[in-house]
């Protein structure tokens, strides 16, 4: 972002006569730069690298053309915008979990594109074709420090357990080549698998058989998949992306592990409410899991073993743990870091909790060359926090995606500023 853009934020805030303090604070830390406006030097931050380098206090991070080009002390760069972090935490941009951001604006059929309701198994259903980078949900999450998320298709009464394909997006609206095939299992999916979870594996086996034997299917044969569906599923079988199974019950997780091993699939698990009960098996199979740290009630008979210590127990057993929210509802994914803080309160080491919303999802979904850590050569998706990034009393102060300072405004800040003056003058009526 150029200095001119920053100035425009200032002007905007002044015109609105409100909430200037934050915007001013942001702008004030940006000293006048030189000709090269593409460089940003963040000075004196507590840098949570999320690499083996660990946390570096009093450290500078230099960003050039959107890439982290140096990390150290007393760095200098002529012409760079200089930001004084005053010792505050700097983290990689955070992960917003599995969500419908950008494919569902509000609960109304005209804005909901997440679920294919054709009663047909269509792994080739690519929900990203519906992704709207200008959805208001992106900006709200972005100013909360969320810079990437896994967009996954949903399921509804007329869907099948293979919901289709999604991807990792960055919350400036950018997409990635990371591919995710989402599969819904367990009791949540009983009504779309003939009324029994046993049929879920029957359907999956048949689909994989068809995908593996593309040529052997003759015209007119009974089949589950279209030719395109066979092609897409084959790509996932061959490792082109991650097959993400949504499953909670310990016994069901075991079935998934056995199935994935037999079929040699690259998988991850989302949900895993009872994951801690099969932690050793998950660790041995090297299958990563994305849990909701809030999940502690037996919401269904699939999750009787839910506990606030799920993440801590999985981590202790050596499982790679990431986080996702309990719902794919797209509006409040900024709450993801609060869930991480709660996992810490219930036994997960702080670094592992931050990794669960930075490095782990980046690695699992094969975007670690771009996001998830702060290291030389990585894209500069960074967040400067007012305090502990997992703490409910902290806020994101500056958010960078590809080294560009993101606007601190969203639809919500516009609403806030329109009404703040009425609150101050006691005329809100």
């Amino acid at each position, binding site marked *: 972002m150029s200095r001119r853009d920053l100035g425009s934020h200032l002007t905007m805030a002044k015109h609105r006569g409100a*909430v200037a*303090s934050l915007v001013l604070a942001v702008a004030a830390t940006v000293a006048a730069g030189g000709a090269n406006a593409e460089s940003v030097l963040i000075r004196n931050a507590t840098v949570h690298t999320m690499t083996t380098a660990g946390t570096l206090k009093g450290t500078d991070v230099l960003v050039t053309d959107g890439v982290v080009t140096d990390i150290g002390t007393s760095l200098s760069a002529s012409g760079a915008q200089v930001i004084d972090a005053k010792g505050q935490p700097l983290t990689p941009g955070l992960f917003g979990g*599995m969500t419908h951001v950008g494919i569902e*604006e*509000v*609960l*109304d059929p005209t804005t909901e594109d997440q*679920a294919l309701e054709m009663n047909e198994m269509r792994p080739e259903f690519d929900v990203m074709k519906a992704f709207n980078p200008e959805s*208001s949900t992106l900006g*709200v999450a972005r100013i909360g420090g969320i810079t990437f998320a896994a967009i996954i298709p*949903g*399921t*509804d*009464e007329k869907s099948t357990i293979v919901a289709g394909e999604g991807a990792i997006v960055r919350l400036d609206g950018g997409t990635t080549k990371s591919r995710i095939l989402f599969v*819904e299992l367990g009791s*949540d*999916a009983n*009504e779309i698998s003939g009324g029994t979870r046993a049929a879920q594996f029957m359907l999956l086996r048949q689909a994989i058989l068809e995908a593996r034997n593309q040529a052997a299917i003759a015209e007119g044969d009974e089949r589950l998949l279209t030719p395109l569906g066979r092609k897409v599923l084959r790509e996932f079988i061959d490792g082109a992306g991650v097959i993400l199974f*949504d499953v909670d*019950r310990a016994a069901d997780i075991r079935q998934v592990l056995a199935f994935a091993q037999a079929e040699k699939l690259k998988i991850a698990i*989302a949900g895993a409410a*009872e994951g801690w*009960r099969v932690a050793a098996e998950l660790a041995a199979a090297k299958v990563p899991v994305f849990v909701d740290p*809030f999940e*502690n*009630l*037996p*919401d269904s*008979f699939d999750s*009787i*073993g*839910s*506990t606030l210590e799920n993440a801590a127990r999985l981590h202790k057993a050596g499982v790679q743990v990431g986080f*996702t929210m*309990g*719902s*794919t*509802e797209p*509006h*409040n994914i900024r*709450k993801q870091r*609060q869930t991480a*803080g*709660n996992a*810490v*309160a219930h036994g997960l080491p702080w670094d592992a909790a931050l990794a669960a919303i930075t490095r782990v999802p980046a690695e699992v979904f094969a975007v670690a060359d771009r996001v998830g850590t702060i290291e030389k050569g990585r894209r500069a998706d960074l967040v400067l926090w007012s305090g502990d990034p997992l*703490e*409910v*009393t*902290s*806020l994101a102060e500056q958010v960078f995606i590809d080294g560009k300072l993101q606007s601190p405004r969203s639809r*919500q800040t516009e609403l*806030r500023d329109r*009404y*703040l003056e009425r*609150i*101050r003058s*006691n005329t*809100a*009526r």
Partner: protein
Amino acid sequence: MKHLVKLGWLCVALGLVAGCAKTTKPDEAAAQAAEPVANPYPSTYKPAAGPPTLIRSATVLTGTGTRLDNADVLVVDGRISAVGPSLQAPAGARIVDGAGKWVTPGLIDVHSHLGVYPSPSVQAHSDGNEATGPVTANVWAEHAVWPQDPGFEAALEGGVTSMQILPGSANLMGGRSVVLKNVPAVTYQGMKFPGAPQGLKMACGENPKRVYGTRRQFPGTRMGNVAGYRAQWVEASEYLRDIGEYERKKKEGNKDAKPVKRDLRLDTLAGVLKGEILVHHHCYRADEMAIVLDMAKEFGYRVSAFHHGVETYKIANLLAENGVCGALWADWWGFKMESYDGIPENLAFVDAVPNGCAIVHSDSSEGIQRLNQEAAKAATHGKRAGLEIPPERLISWVTSNAARSLGINAQTGSLEAGKMGDVVVWNRDPFSVYALAELVLVDGVVQYERAKPTPPRSDFLLGQPAAAGVTP
């Protein structure tokens, strides 16, 4: 994770009926002409007798806007006895070292569906919406509360000592609420808050008009919603007038005086008009809340609190001037059209105006476990907007303001001598994501102690192999 949204948590928030509630037609003929029995389902809750408790040298947020550092809290015979420095321990008192710890009143959630939408959320447990007609003021949430809901003990671990259980929002008038104390019991009467008024759950906007409109029934629009309420208030006013007339004639010895046929629905509405039952109105949009306030004036009743009110910040003064509280979420928004304008400064704005009454509510079995964190988030956003809310004020959002809206502020909601001994000891500043309730007293009785884990209280979790090693 939930993807079948219509089967998930949104059931409650959206008042969706499909997949949430399967009910049969109510028996309209249940009404009797008999004289009403006062308090027919009385509380049987009696706190156990126990030793006094003295919490020493803690940071105390009293709930009345005061913060006391290095102060003691003494609870005797189930009541707050004293709060202040260097209190004397009565003989046999249990001493709690409060050094480094924070003490607050027990938290109060004014909007919960625990027990009526309990875990596990199977069809058979869906008891929160009597969505068989748009006005079911005759039903009482307490008659559906399942005391074995594991959500109660989870809320207790979050420091919640009292809560209002409401019917859902499918109906214009969904029925009566009940206030419970968060204590283990086999019957709901064993949890019932002694002397707490009941509430009437009403609902604006999308839910009633969708639930009935999609069935081609009344109401199908917001116009219909308001006409629906007004017709009820007209009827209730006439009911009250007829009862008054009968009582006058009876008093005069008029042999022709005929008792008014009793009607359970109108009993509830008459209770509102008489000020005995408090109105808790689910309403998201500013314009709709303003209509409801006019309607309350039209028929001469008060709204105790608007619940959910994501647009309350647009009319914060209007609520304050009418003495109406805003029971709100910290940051929920957008999950349906009428919640699209939600902002995380909503609570702070409501708090900022003179006589503002901000309450953090949950409407969620997850949120009720973290009312302190929700308040902290809202205050953090308020601070960034220039509205500083210190902890001693913030605590009122989840204690005394909540008690006020429920009509129980004379009994609980603050640490003042004579009030119920509902007290939480936190391991640190409660407005932190890392804060944990270490000790929870309800009426002076230790109901939760983090250092001493107990088996699950809910019978449902007993003997479940999957739950071994789990405390909710």
